[in-house]
């Protein structure tokens, strides 16, 4: 298990070490990874190539809006699937599975055409609109599966107690499906933090771009500047990891407590 962990961790280590190499230097041959001396100034160089703080702020805004919306939309839809019967349920599942199969690339152009049509294109939050569609139907199916394990009698009891559908969702399903909610929150955070194709197609003003798109541009730097790019990558990855590190205790605790 330790060995496996190392294999999984290795790329991260390589990334961090790479970010400390001196730029404008021949790339190291073979396993010569250790930066000597560590070039911390690479991190300071990143903002020279992209408006880092601004883009991070955009990304933060995106995540803060899109993730809760995703969780709400998908968990409500998941509960609807679980509590629906017959044709309605098959319909909802069918639509979700079908949408799961849709190639992302097929939607880029029509989507932007449509969103421009309704005047919603090109804002920092345009990409967050995807949260309305649940970001991906995968999350909806996840919630449906999670909720299908809540004892029926609980949902029934709640209904008999006179709780409205919304209250049943809010007070019973959501807390009971907390592992799923946390998982979806984690996954969608990652999604919105790292998506660059959606903003590339949906958002035209660079001022509205998220940091992932900035990083993507940085990735086309000359090879000799890669240490700076890697520094950028570390900076962008760090919040995701930090969030994970902070959240991991409560995250896994909630996963386990179910």
């Amino acid at each position, binding site marked *: 298990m330790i060995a496996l962990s190392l294999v999984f961790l290795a790329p991260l280590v390589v990334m961090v070490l790479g970010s400390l190499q001196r730029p404008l230097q021949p790339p190291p041959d073979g396993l010569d990874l250790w930066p000597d001396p560590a070039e911390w100034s690479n991190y300071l160089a990143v903002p020279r190539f992209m408006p880092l703080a601004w883009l991070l702020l955009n990304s933060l805004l995106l995540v803060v809006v899109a993730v809760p919306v995703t969780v709400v939309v998908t968990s409500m839809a998941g509960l609807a699937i679980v509590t629906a019967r017959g044709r309605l349920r098959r319909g909802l599942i069918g639509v979700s599975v079908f949408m799961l199969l849709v190639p992302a690339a097929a939607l880029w152009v029509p989507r*932007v055409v449509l969103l421009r049509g309704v005047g919603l294109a090109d804002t920092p939050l345009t990409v967050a609109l995807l949260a309305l569609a649940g970001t991906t139907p995968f999350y909806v199916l996840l919630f449906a599966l999670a909720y299908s394990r809540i004892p029926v009698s609980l949902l029934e009891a709640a209904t008999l107690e006179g709780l409205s559908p919304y209250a049943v969702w809010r007070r019973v399903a959501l807390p009971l499906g907390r592992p799923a909610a946390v998982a979806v929150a984690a996954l969608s955070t990652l999604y919105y933090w790292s998506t660059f194709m959606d903003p590339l197609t949906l958002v035209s003003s660079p001022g509205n771009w998220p940091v992932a798109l900035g990083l993507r541009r940085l990735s086309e730097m000359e090879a000799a*500047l890669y240490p700076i790019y890697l520094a950028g990558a570390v900076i962008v990855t760090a919040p995701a990891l930090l969030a994970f590190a902070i959240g991991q205790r409560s995250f896994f605790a909630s996963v386990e407590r179910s």
Partner: protein
Amino acid sequence: SAPGEDAAAGSATARITVQLKADPEEAAVYRSLATAYQAAGGGEIELVTVGRKDHLTRLSTAFASGDAPDVFLINYREYAPFVQRGAVRPIGPLLKQEGLDTADYYEQPLSAFTYDGALQCMPQNISSLVVYWNRALFAKAGLPAPKAGWSWDEFVRTAQALTADGVKGVGIDPSITRMAPFIWSKGGAIVDDGKAPTRTTLHEPGARAALQAVVDLIATGATPSKDQLASQGLEEQFMTGKLAMFMSSRVEVPALREQRGLDFDVAALPVMGTPASVLHSDAYCVASSSKNTKAAAKFIAYAVGQQGQTVTALGGRTVPSLRSVATSPAFLSPARPPASSQVFLDAIAHLRHTPVTPSWPEVEDVIGTQLQRAFEDGVPLDEVLAEIQKQADPLLRRR
């Protein structure tokens, strides 16, 4: 973000969007261009700098959604689809209003960007293929600097002489833009008709001979092995002293300049028959959907004008298309390498360009893939050429 509600021309200082494909380093150059423009009384510019790979994606979706930038920079190899499909507003008349005289500019790029008899976009640079060479490695091998008009055989011999432990003589990209000058030099052609191509002609004797010569060069072992090619790009190998020569356009200069301890220069391409080189050029286009053509034209006129061209030339990235700047120290000053920038200007006389036709990007990919087989996998040239004919000709016919 595309304002301008009244007239089609809009105000001359309206805010416009300009989309460029640019490395992060290049982007800085364009930012200073925009700043200089504004300082000179121009309107506000929103620069959208996108990576190489995302430039076309962004343009396509932007055009499809009616959110096209007012101005975009594009390579002549890629612009044909845009022009043919009506995305571009011919720029000639617009620039005339701005009082810009195209006679001050080199002809080749202007002709490359002329389609249907009208100048569609305004070229900002006129780069060409040259040989980058490492002075230290030449000195170590006891070789003199390459002379203008050197022959292919000299070139091959030089490459062989440079090949030593850990160093290869020359790197060659298996792409048609790299091969084109040699094909032309040998009297061959890429397609039957440069204006309206219907088929490829690489299998015909002239072109075939040129390609064979390259294959023969590769067979001498003076070029990087397949593993080496997969390990590192040619420019990286060159930077790190593993490669003594490689061919590219002006685009490499900024990065090579920053490489500490690298002493390099450029030389003219070797000649197989008559001298030839291939045009590399980007141009500013005005989107047909733009509501601020006046402001767009004003910006372009500035960018390709004396001041604009000086700003970009100093960045090192471009060979100015404006003669006066190209011949000025801003471009030629030997203080900043390469010392022999004149080589780029000398090549202009025999510059040609690849066909301008909508299916060209795909044809290029097909040819590139097949040449790679011949150059790297040792597949017989004739087999490869037959395959190119088979795959590329239908594409050309379909347009």
